[in-house]
Structures are given as structure tokens and as C-alpha cells.
């Protein structure tokens, strides 16, 4: 008999599932749980529990009416909520701020901007990042741009329109008041960044230029070539540096947060590991801000940086914070396709390319086969034999439909056998017609011959180069094909996670004193994020929201005095961390960490990826559980803990991804509807569009940790829509 397979008693099973013994007996008699009777006592195999655990009735579900945490959304009309709230929340006086310490974990757009602003206001900040410099946080890789409702183009943009586009783009699964506030402060972000010396793109009049992104009908995206994230992060980094120089921020690079410390139910510090010396350290503070980004790397292959991880958010969850909508993941439609098993990460091609690129596959399967065998070039396929499937299916938005819609449409074509590379997992993104259009415009405006094809093409290519030069260059380096001459090959890839730590209107988690900002929280993007909105949210949270709302909490803390890191809670948390590290080193041989990460990623992509179904999700849950067991039994981490050891750092991150992956699948299984990036095959219209279920699922799924090997509890925060009417999303 397999020694992993245990026979459990009814009491053990009841404890494990956090339900009464009576419930288990009822399920045995109804046949829902298979048991064996040994000596008159029911015994249930652990495998049986594995298949049952998580979904359906066995998860403890608390209805919306009993949601235990007030979301603190202020009263009053939508447009006045933030203004009124700012005017009525508690403040901390400048003199008292000097006595208050705040920890910020992560130094991307959200973390760096929050650290700088908090320090500027007078708080003492300790900022942490795992990279060797705060400037390397993965916000830096954002390409396309940042949204703001400035209406500089005079195309009818407004705060309300940005708010409405974001709510609709998120498929009506985000909180109205948070999204409106985001739209409201968006204009300020641009003012702030320009004042800091961020070199945005400008037109010949010297004013700021804009472009258009998916899911909207106005041009509100500000950009700095294809390096907007880099320029914004360097702006926030410079503000952070200014405060480091003033001594108001103490910066800890190459440090990983390993656990959160709670004293009397409040967040009072963190335990970190110095990634250079291996030392486990205690850091105390009056509040802890998590700004550690998203968890897309649970899929192993994603556009996230290699080090991006969920650990900080996950430790907060395991200490009692709610984790919201873990299954809401964004699969970005325009990434460079996977080239082989060695692949370590995926590279995004900015959504801005869809402004000028047209997406297509061949209409005829014969052409597809010839293309795959390299007997035919894409440029040789006649216009009539091409299927511009986004323009065909969504005439109003065309190539600029939201990301989730574009990704699913690519998958649909590839599943139907029209994929254009050897793996059948790629579609074309073609710039030919944009090159000709721009070339003609330029020829006419500069008085040259617009009928001369080679001239037109040359001029057009120059314009495309000025707009997207670095992206084209990057593509050519990776794929070894010239995208000016032949269409790019692209395929969807995991890119962003809308889910995250649950926060209230003040961006505080359900643990008092613990806050979450940027991609690490769940609040603004619902079930799908619009392009160029991640940068907006990171900076809005960090510059303009958290620094003020945190005062509401800290106002009660002015007499607390310094946090004692010798307290027993710190020692206990430190012990938990050390135990984990010792335990990881117990195997003297076995499989490398990457083996497990890749396996987890494959389960996630195959069963929790672009489309999901009940059976797939159930099997994902049990496969992940078995993988987790195998991990602890057989993972091998070489070297030791008292040194720079990347394998050890990876092991800690993968251990958390394994747990998150399971919750992800449980959440996806529980949400019996399709919305945004969450597409359940059982719930679709006859045309294959996502079918939402507003009467049963207009809530945030907030998962609450119940202990190791116990099913989590589901709390539901009802989403109230007062200013917009719930409609089925149409981009046709």
C-alpha cells in the first residue's frame, strides 16, 4: 500500500475540513464521501478527502450579509466620497509622525511612491526589496503607458468616463468607490511625474502626447516610448532617494520578507532574511504596508520577473488577512510565443502595438500547414485569404478589444487549428497596413510622391520605428525575425493578477495596521484590468491614497512608543521562519526547486489558465496537493542558509506558490460564472462570449485561512453598484 495514503477517522476528517462530525456522517450516508468500515468504525482515505476538499458544500461559506469586515466606503454621492473622506478621517500631527515607524515591503511604483510620500509627511520609513536596488522592481518592465483622464486631446474624456471604462473593463467585479477615486486622482499623477522630471513623449508643440489602449474609445494614455514603467519607476525611485538622503527612509535591498508579526492582533513588524548574509532579522513598526506586486509566477511562465513572488501577500493571508479573488488573472494577448522546454520567462509586446498592428491567421487550413512547414511566407498570403478575426468578431473595437477578449479569441483560433508556428500556438500581429498608412501621410505632408511604394514603405517604417523602436528591436533579438518585414508572431501569456490581498477603502487589510497597495491588493480592476491602468493604480495608491488613509489608523498609535522586537511574538515568528529554513535543508539529495515550479506552472496553465472547467479544476486541486507533498519530501536545496543562496530563496517562494495555486483553483471552481479573465467553459453564450451571473456572483470572494490542511473559509463582500447599471459587456 502506498504509504502516503492514510486512513482517517471521522473526527480527523471533520477537523481537517473544519465542519462538524455530523456533516461528515451525513455525507457518508448520502454517498458523497466513500468510507470503509473497519471494526465497526468508519475510515476515510486521505485521497478521498483530496478529491472532495475545497469545492462545493464542504467549504465553509459565509453569505454577503455576514461579511465580517466593513469596507469603510464613505457615504454620499460618488463624486464627493473621497473629498469628504479626506476631510473627515483622523490625522496625525507632524510632531507625532516623527515617533511613528512604517515598514514598506516592495519598492515598485506603489512601494517606492508610498515610502517617499510617507517619509515626506514625517513618518520614519523602512523600505525592503529583494532586488539589489529599489530601481529594479518589476514595474520597470511596463511598456505601454499610464492612463489619466486629462482630456488633453479634447475627445470627451472625463473622470467619469475613465471610471466607467474601468468598471466595465473589469466586468463589474470591482468596488465602485475605489475605482472612482482612482480616476479622480489620475490627472494628479501626470502633474506630479512631470514635475519630477519624468520625460514623457511630447508633440512638436512641446505638449504631452497621448495614445489609445484596449477597451476604450478615447486617447488618454501617456507614454515614454515603450519604457513608460521604467521612467515612472525611476521618478518614484528619485523621490525615494531624496528621502533616503534625508535619513527619513532606511532602505534594505536584497532582503526578503519571510513573515508578518502580530501583537495583540495588530501588525507590528516583519521577519526578513538578508539574501546576502542569510541572516534572519526582526523589524518592528507601527504599521506594515505590503507592496510586493502580483503572483503571476504561480504559472512559472509569465511576463513577471524571475523573482516576482507572492510570499509577502501569502504570509499576510496566513496570519489572518483575507485573500480576494485569487482566480482573477490577466492573460495578455500579445506576448512572444514559447519557443521550447528551456523557456524561463515570457516577454510581452506592449498592447500599444494593437493601435497599429492588425491581428490575423490564415483563413484556409492548407495555408496554415504550408506556413508551419515553412513552404509559404505570411507576406505571400493574399488579403482575402486572411482572417482578421478581431475585426470580424468585434467591429466596433476591432483590434483594441480588452485583453481578456483578445486572448480568448486567439486561443479559439489556435484551438481550431489555425495557429501559425510549429507548436500551433501563435497568431500574427501585422504592421504592413500601418506602415503604408503612415508612409503615405508623411509623403503627402512632406510633398513627396505618395505613389512611390518603396518610398512610402521607407517613410512608414521610420514612423513605426520612432513609436515602437525598442519593442521591435527586442522582438528581433528574441525571435530572430525582422518585424518590419514580416508580421510578428504572438500568443497570450500570464501577465497580471487582479486578485490579491483584500483591502477596505483605506487600503487596510483585515489585519489592523497591515495595508496592501498596488498589484498586491485586489481593489480596482475587478475581473480584468485595462491596459495602462496598473501604473496608474500603483502610483495613485502610493502617492495619493495610502499616505492619507494610513493616518486614520495611526492616529490611535501616537502613544504606543517604539515597537519592542524582543517581544515573544517576534521570537515566535522568527522561530517559524527558521524552522521552515531548517526543514528545507533536511534533504541531502532530490529534485531542484525549478522542477516543482515548472510542474506547478503546467498544472496551472492547463487547468486554471485561459479557460477553466469543473473537472479540470478539481483535478488541479488534487494534483497540486500531491505535488506539495512531494515538494516537502524530495526538494533538494544545495549550499547552506548562512550565505547568498538563490535556491533557498526560490524554495521559499515556490512553497508559497504551491499553497496559493490550490486556493486559486478552489476559487475558480467556486465561481460558477464567466467574467473578465475568468472563463468557465460551462458558462458561455452561444457565440462563445463570457456569461456572467450577476444575481449570484456580484461579490468579492474573500478567502480566510483556517489552519494548515484545513479548507479555507469563503466570506463574500457584496458589490453594490449605485452609479453604473450592470450590463453585459459588448465590444461589438
Amino acid at each position, binding site marked *: 500500500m502506498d504509504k502516503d495514503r492514510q486512513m482517517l477517522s471521522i473526527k480527523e476528517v471533520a477537523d481537517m475540513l473544519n465542519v462538524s462530525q455530523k456533516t461528515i456522517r451525513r455525507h457518508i450516508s448520502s454517498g458523497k464521501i466513500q468510507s470503509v468500515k473497519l471494526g465497526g468504525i468508519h475510515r476515510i482515505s486521505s485521497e478521498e478527502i483530496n478529491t472532495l476538499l475545497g469545492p462545493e458544500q464542504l467549504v465553509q461559506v459565509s453569505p454577503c450579509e455576514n461579511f465580517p469586515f466593513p469596507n469603510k466606503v464613505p457615504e454620499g454621492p460618488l463624486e464627493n466620497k473621497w473629498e469628504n473622506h479626506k476631510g473627515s478621517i483622523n490625522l496625525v500631527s507632524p510632531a507625532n509622525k516623527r515617533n511613528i515607524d512604517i515598514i514598506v515591503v516592495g519598492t515598485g511604483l506603489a512601494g517606492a511612491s508610498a515610502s*517617499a*510620500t510617507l517619509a*515626506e509627511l514625517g513618518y520614519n520609513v523602512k523600505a525592503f526589496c529583494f532586488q*539589489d*536596488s529599489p530601481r*529594479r522592481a*518589476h514595474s*520597470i*518592465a511596463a511598456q505601454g503607458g499610464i492612463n489619466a483622464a486629462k482630456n*488633453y486631446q479634447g475627445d470627451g474624456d472625463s473622470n467619469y468616463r475613465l471610471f466607467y471604462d474601468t468598471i466595465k473593463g473589469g466586468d463589474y467585479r470591482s468596488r465602485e468607490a475605489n475605482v472612482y477615486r482612482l480616476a479622480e*486622482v489620475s490627472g494628479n499623477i*501626470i*502633474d*506630479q511625474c*512631470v*514635475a*519630477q*522630471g519624468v*520625460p*514623457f*513623449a*511630447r508633440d512638436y*508643440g*512641446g*505638449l*504631452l502626447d497621448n495614445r489609445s489602449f484596449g477597451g476604450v474609445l478615447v486617447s488618454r494614455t501617456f507614454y*515614454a*516610448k515603450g*519604457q513608460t514603467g*521604467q521612467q515612472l519607476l*525611476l521618478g518614484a*525611485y528619485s*523621490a525615494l*532617494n*531624496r528621502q533616503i538622503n534625508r535619513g527619513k527612509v532606511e*532602505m534594505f*535591498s536584497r532582503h526578503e520578507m519571510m513573515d508578518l508579526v502580530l501583537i495583540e492582533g495588530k501588525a507590528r513588524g516583519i521577519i526578513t532574511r538578508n539574501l*546576502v548574509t542569510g541572516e534572519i532579522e526582526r523589524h518592528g513598526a507601527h504599521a506594515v504596508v505590503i507592496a510586493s506586486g502580483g503572483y503571476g509566477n504561480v504559472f512559472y511562465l509569465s511576463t513577471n*520577473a*524571475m523573482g516576482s513572488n507572492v510570499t509577502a501577500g501569502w504570509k499576510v493571508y496566513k496570519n489572518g488577512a483575507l485573500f480576494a479573488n485569487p482566480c482573477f488573472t490577466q492573460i495578455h494577448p500579445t506576448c512572444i510565443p514559447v519557443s*521550447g522546454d*528551456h*523557456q*524561463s*520567462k515570457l*516577454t*510581452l509586446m506592449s498592447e500599444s502595438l494593437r493601435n497599429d498592428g492588425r491581428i490575423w491567421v490564415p483563413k484556409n487550413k492548407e495555408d496554415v500547414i504550408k506556413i508551419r512547414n515553412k513552404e509559404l511566407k505570411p507576406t505571400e498570403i493574399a488579403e482575402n485569404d486572411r482572417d482578421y478575426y478581431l475585426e470580424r468578431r468585434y467591429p466596433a473595437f476591432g483590434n483594441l478589444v480588452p485583453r481578456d477578449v483578445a486572448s480568448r479569441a486567439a486561443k479559439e483560433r489556435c484551438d481550431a487549428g489555425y495557429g501559425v508556428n510549429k507548436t500551433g500556438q501563435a497568431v500574427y500581429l501585422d504592421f504592413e497596413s500601418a506602415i503604408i498608412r503612415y508612409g503615405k501621410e508623411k509623403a503627402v505632408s512632406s510633398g513627396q510622391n505618395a505613389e512611390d511604394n518603396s518610398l512610402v514603405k521607407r517613410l512608414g517604417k521610420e514612423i513605426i520605428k520612432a513609436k515602437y523602436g525598442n519593442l521591435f*528591436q*527586442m522582438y528581433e*533579438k*528574441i525571435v*530572430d525575425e525582422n518585424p518590419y518585414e514580416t508580421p510578428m508572431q504572438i500568443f497570450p501569456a500570464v501577465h497580471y493578477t487582479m486578485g490579491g490581498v483584500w483591502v477596505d477603502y483605506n487600503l487596510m487589510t483585515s489585519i489592523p495596521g497591515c495595508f496592501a497597495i498596488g498589484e498586491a491588493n485586489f481593489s480596482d480592476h475587478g475581473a480584468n484590468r485595462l491596459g495602462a491602468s496598473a501604473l496608474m493604480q500603483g502610483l495613485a495608491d502610493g502617492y*495619493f491614497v495610502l499616505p492619507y488613509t494610513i493616518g486614520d489608523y495611526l492616529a490611535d498609535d501616537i502613544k504606543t512608543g517604539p515597537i519592542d522586537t524582543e517581544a515573544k511574538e517576534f521570537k515566535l515568528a522568527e522561530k517559524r521562519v527558521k524552522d521552515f529554513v531548517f526543514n528545507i535543508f533536511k534533504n541531502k*539529495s532530490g529534485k*531542484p526547486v525549478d522542477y516543482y515550479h515548472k510542474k506547478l506552472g503546467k498544472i496551472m496553465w492547463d487547468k486554471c489558465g485561459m479557460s477553466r472547467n469543473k473537472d479540470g479544476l478539481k483535478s488541479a486541486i488534487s494534483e497540486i496537493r500531491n505535488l506539495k507533498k512531494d515538494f516537502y519530501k524530495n526538494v533538494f536545496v*544545495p549550499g547552506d542558509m548562512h*550565505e*547568498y543562496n*538563490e*535556491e533557498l530563496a526560490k524554495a521559499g517562494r515556490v512553497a508559497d506558490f504551491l499553497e496559493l495555486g490550490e486556493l486559486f483553483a478552489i476559487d475558480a471552481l467556486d465561481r460558477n460564472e464567466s467574467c473578465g479573465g475568468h472563463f468557465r467553459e460551462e458558462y458561455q453564450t452561444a457565440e462563445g462570449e463570457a456569461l456572467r451571473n450577476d444575481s449570484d456572483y456580484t461579490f468579492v470572494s474573500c478567502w480566510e485561512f483556517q489552519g494548515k490542511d484545513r479548507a479555507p473559509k469563503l466570506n463574500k463582500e457584496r458589490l453594490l453598484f449605485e452609479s453604473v447599471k450592470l450590463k453585459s459587456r459588448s465590444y461589438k
Partner: protein
Amino acid sequence: MDLTLKIWRQKKEYEKGAMHAYQIKNIEPDMSFLEMLDVLNQKLINDGVEPVAFDHDCREGICGACSLVINGAPHGPDSGTTTCQLHMRRFNTGDTIYIEPFRGSAFPVIKDLVVDRSAFDRIQQAGGYVSINTSGNTVDANATPIPKPDADEAFNSAACIGCGACVAACKNSSAMLFVGAKVSQYANLPQGKVESKDRVINMVKQMDKEGFGSCTNTGACEAHCPKEISTDNILTLNREYIKSKLNQ
């Protein structure tokens, strides 16, 4: 393809290091250079040997974490390319590849190929910013038009990823290109003008304190810069520095 790798191994900052040879087989041309090192590391772990430590993160050429001197060239043989964007199709079977950390006394080795580049952060902290509060109470973003050529020039300087290849390429380990890029970005923008005098003095002072060498105009920094930052930035740095000194 099959390759011989000669890699610098060093346990800790003050321990003696040495080049070690490794054989590696079946490398595909579509792999990136770092994916080739991943393959090596998985093999080393399976053999019970400690993997080679190297810095890397975004793997799309923008974060500036990856480094390495490959066959004597920082970021390897391709121009305008970071190590993570270098692909194995650039090499041939049977090649021997030498892999070393970035050198420079201001960049001490942490382990193997990982070096400490925090000196760059400290230079930025000395003045690489505009002293404006982040309250959002600023003028409208379009209140001050900036001529497009100036904005483009500022952008070109700001494209620096802070990887340190300029220092590694320079026989003097000079950081002038890095510092020049930051100083030029602000020198080209009206927002940066107010503090231009102190900024350049403070940043250069910190640069010298960190132990970076002087510039002797060999141009190796620009040749190896993955973002092709121009040595014109060094001219701007010198001009700004002299201007500030004369005005003191």
C-alpha cells in the same frame, strides 16, 4: 550545441576565487544566455554541486540586474544588448565561453558572478532627483511646454538601466557615463534646472568617494552600453560641473 564554459567561482567577498571549467551539451540556439546558465545550474544541482550565482530578474533587458563579462565584453558580444537578451544562436558548437563578474573596485563580488552595485544607488541619493514634494499640488502637466528635441534628449539619457556595464568596460572603472546620463536628463528639462548646480557637485563628490576612476575618453562605456547611452552625456556632465564650479 556543445560548449565549454569557464566560469569565475568565488564563495564570498573576501575569499579567493578561481575560474572553473564546465562542459555543457545540447544547448539550443533559441535559448537565451541565461537560460543556458539555468540548464548548467540544474545539472550542477543534480550532481550535488552548488549552482553558479548570477544576478538576473526581468529577463527582458530593462531592469538592469543581469551583468556578466562574456568573453571579455560586458553583456557579451552583441551591441545594444543586455546579457538576458543575448541568445545562444550567437555561438557555435565547440566554443569555449569565458564568464566573469563585472570588475571594478567599487563593485565588490558578493558571490560567483554577483557583484554589489549599491554604489550607484548612493550616487543617485546624493542628488539624482528634483526636490519636489509628492503631494500632487503642482502645476498642470501641460503648463510648461518642453520643446520636443529637449524632451527626446532627456529621454535618451533617462533610458540608462543602471547595470554598470560602463564601469565594467572602462579600464579606469569610471562611472562618468552613468552619472552623466542622470545629470543630462535633468539638465535638459526645466524642472531640473533649479538644483542643477548642487546636483552635479554632490553626485560627482559621491562618485569619487565610492572609488570610481576618472574618464580618459576611450569610449568603451558607450560601445558596451546595452542602451547605447552616448558619451555626449559625459560632455554635458563636464560642462555642468565646470559651470557649477565657476559659479561657486
